[in-house]
């Protein structure tokens, strides 16, 4: 194909079909039928585009024999005829290929029963003879390979993007993870996730791996934890098989290491990781790391590693908000085949604040339904929820800690809390403090009353009741309670 000329599309009154049709009738007059049928009919004009002052025509021939002989014997004639038709000089380019009508013919054949192994039709339970290359088989095979490969690597097949609930606290991390899985080594390298316990770092990291395998099951992905990496290095040094270790890690196309903070302070490990890191990034390998804290907070981490981590994309994943927890409840319950209505899900999310605990709760719910054969009702859910929230941690804080924490949260002075002022927000805070003293520290109603300037036990009872009711549907109140408790427990 002549690529040195810039061709422009044809003007509309000179379509290639019309041009060729006219050209053919002219040629037919001058050529014997045998010659016409052999060299013209089977070699149609398939493209005509403007090329400077003239035109560039493309004639497609079924074989090299046609192209060679056409060019040799009839090039001049065809050129002349085309000149006549388009009234401009025409150059011809001969290519070999399938002619469109043939292409359509072959495509229209779809699931034609083969002569051998004919399928019986008309019966309901007809045995199906399936094509080896049907989309279903290919898809299934791709999935099988991806699954098998994932198992080999150590990825949990349940940790995919499909099962990862996204919200404001993790949407940045999620977007980066998706981008990296689509273009490993080319977008963000290294990718560094950090965050507290149970926020989904491992899930997201493994989802990257699983997603890459979906489209390219042969990708060389290495997944391990910081601890496993450390153990392997130690082992490799001890058994003098450093070569195999290096081969495994440095030839990876994607390296995923969970809890990288573990290698801090271990010099030999950091040294090895440094070399691995360089080897991979040089070959556009993708590195994804997770940690429980950002690089600058990992003490005893070598500077050269820290700077490399910081040169990539660092994203934090925060603890899930109420909305995200609701989504997680819905997602996990759906996977466990326990359909929950959204209100129920919200209530669960109100009470349970960590994704792991939600997982535990769903499992417990499932066991009640499956093993004890109980029906899935809201009552069951509430019963289990109450049980859940009643299993308290031994409160290691004192009443004054509680009062200070509550006061600090609502941004008022402790003395206001225990005083007599009846401003709405102070009252609310006061009631909440009473609730915590009752629930977490198990103080008697009278004792609680004493802490708040000698209030009567019935007032305390009333306050606690109001909080209880409020907690049923007041999101802000629940958040307040959770945050205060978190602070107290810390």
């Amino acid at each position, binding site marked *: 194909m002549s690529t040195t000329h810039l061709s422009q599309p044809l003007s509309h009154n000179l379509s290639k079909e019309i041009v060729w049709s006219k050209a053919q009738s002219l040629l037919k007059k001058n050529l014997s039928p*045998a*010659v016409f*049928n*052999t*060299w013209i009919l*089977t070699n149609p004009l398939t493209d005509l585009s403007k090329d400077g002052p003239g035109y560039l025509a493309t004639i497609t021939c*079924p*074989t*090299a*024999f*046609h*192209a*060679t*002989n056409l060019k*040799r014997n009839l090039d001049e004639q065809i050129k002349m005829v085309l000149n006549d038709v388009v009234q401009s000089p025409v150059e011809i380019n001969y*290519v*070999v*290929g*399938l002619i469109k009508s043939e292409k359509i*013919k*072959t495509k229209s*054949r779809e699931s*034609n029963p*083969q*002569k*051998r*192994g*004919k*399928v*019986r039709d008309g019966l309901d*339970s*007809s*045995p*199906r*003879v*399936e*094509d*080896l*290359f049907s989309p279903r*088989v*290919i898809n*299934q*095979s*791709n999935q*099988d*390979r991806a699954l*098998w*490969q994932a198992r080999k690597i150590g990825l949990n097949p349940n940790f995919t993007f499909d099962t990862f609930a996204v919200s404001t606290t993790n949407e940045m991390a999620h977007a980066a993870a998706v981008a990296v899985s689509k273009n490993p080594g080319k977008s963000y390298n290294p990718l560094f996730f950090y965050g507290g316990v149970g926020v989904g770092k491992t899930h997201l990291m493994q989802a990257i791996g699983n997603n890459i395998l979906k489209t390219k099951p042969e990708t060389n992905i290495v997944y391990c934890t910081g601890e496993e990496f450390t153990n392997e290095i130690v082992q490799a040094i001890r058994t003098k098989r450093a070569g195999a270790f290096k081969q495994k890690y440095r030839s990876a196309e994607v390296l995923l290491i969970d809890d990288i903070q573990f290698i801090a302070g271990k010099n030999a490990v950091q040294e090895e990781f440094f070399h691995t890191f360089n080897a991979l990034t040089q070959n556009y390998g993708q590195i994804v790391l997770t940690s429980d804290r950002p690089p600058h907070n990992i003490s005893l981490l070598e500077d050269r590693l820290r700077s490399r981590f910081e040169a990539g994309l660092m994203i934090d994943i925060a603890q899930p908000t109420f909305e995200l927890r609701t989504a997680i409840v819905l997602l996990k319950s759906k996977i466990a085949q326990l359909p929950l209505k959204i209100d129920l899900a919200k209530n669960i999310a109100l009470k349970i604040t960590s994704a792991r605990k939600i997982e535990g709760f769903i499992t417990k719910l499932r066991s009640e339904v499956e093993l004890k054969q109980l029906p899935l009702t809201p009552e069951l859910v509430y019963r289990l929820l109450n049980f859940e929230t009643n299993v308290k941690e031994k409160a290691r804080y004192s009443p004054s800690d509680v009062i200070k924490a509550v006061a600090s949260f609502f941004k008022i002075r402790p003395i206001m809390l225990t005083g007599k002022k009846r401003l709405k927000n102070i009252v609310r805070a006061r009631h909440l403090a009473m609730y915590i003293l009752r629930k977490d520290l198990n103080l008697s109603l009278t004792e609680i009353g004493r802490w708040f300037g000698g209030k009567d036990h019935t007032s305390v009872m009333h306050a606690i009741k109001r909080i209880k009711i409020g907690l049923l549907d007041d999101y802000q109140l629940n958040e307040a309670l959770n945050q205060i408790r978190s602070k107290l427990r810390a």
Partner: protein
Amino acid sequence: MDFKFKVNQLKKNLPLLKRAFSSAPSLPVLNGILFYASGNQVMIQATDLYFGVNFSFKAEIKEEGRVVVRGQQLIEIINSIDKLSEIHFFQASGETDVTITSGQVKIKLPTYNEKDFPSFPKLKGESYLITQEQLRFINQYVTSNASTDLTRPILTGILFDFHSSKLVVAATDGYRLATADLAQTSELTGKIIIPAKIIKEIEKTVVESELKQIILEVDKKLFQAKCIVDNVDIFIRLIEGEYPPYEKIIPPKFNLFLSFLADDLLPHLKRAKIFAKNNSNIVQLRIKQKTMEVFANSLSMGIYTSEFSDFTQEGEGLNIAFNVDYLIDFLQKAADKTVKLAIVDSLKPIKLTITGVKNLSYIVMPIKVHSEI
């Protein structure tokens, strides 16, 4: 024009010449064979524009010339002439007919205008090498798995997938696939699809020659390959298109392995076929532990069962059904050797291999049967 040569030169390439003729070519000259006598060589060419053959050999040339002789009858006559005799071509100046004599036989054939005879294309591309051994192997185990259905031309070809230092060949008809890994010394890569019929033809030519290697010159832009075997050039129109993703459908992991002598299971399948042919050739293998029932239901015409236990088993038994022809095909090729059957489950492709024949895999799609009739 006047020349003579040993009949064998023509006779050994007769099948190739035959293939170069189509029944009713649009151009009359394509009914002819070109003889070009020059120096001490005669070059012969024949083509139908899709397939072409070209070969030269030493001859005794009294007078040079270039003539296109009507081919059909010539080919048929040559068949009956002894290969050791000589054949003499003579065309008097001014005459159009050519007189051909050999021993007692004398024929006169009309000619075509030699200027009308098409030129053979010049190829620009890479040259791949295949050994005679490899070609024989391909034809023994792989070639027959290609399809003969012309509505899906891609499947009528054999895929030659050249990787650096490895050649993978594959053939499938959409329901079963054979693939083999062969060694390659060159680093050339490339994928070409050659019509299965022609691969068989090439082997026949190769057998005659003493050369151990076959050169495949490929011009990818022209979709044309020239296969050079000794002094014969075979021009092949390669099949255009995307070959089905054969590597993708081979399962990575299997759950059940059976090992047995091909000849042990074969009679069971052949008997079952007698009944199965009334029912889309479906034969069920009901594999239990260390024994299996071969089952075929010919609907209203009876049921066949037989028990087969001469095999070793690794994994849980299951029921699986096939088009028995696909199994018989493979087992016949394996003959007296041990065969290993690897199964994932009753709905996924299975893999058959022959112990001792390395790098050959045969994949078959089972048939989904709903109920155990």
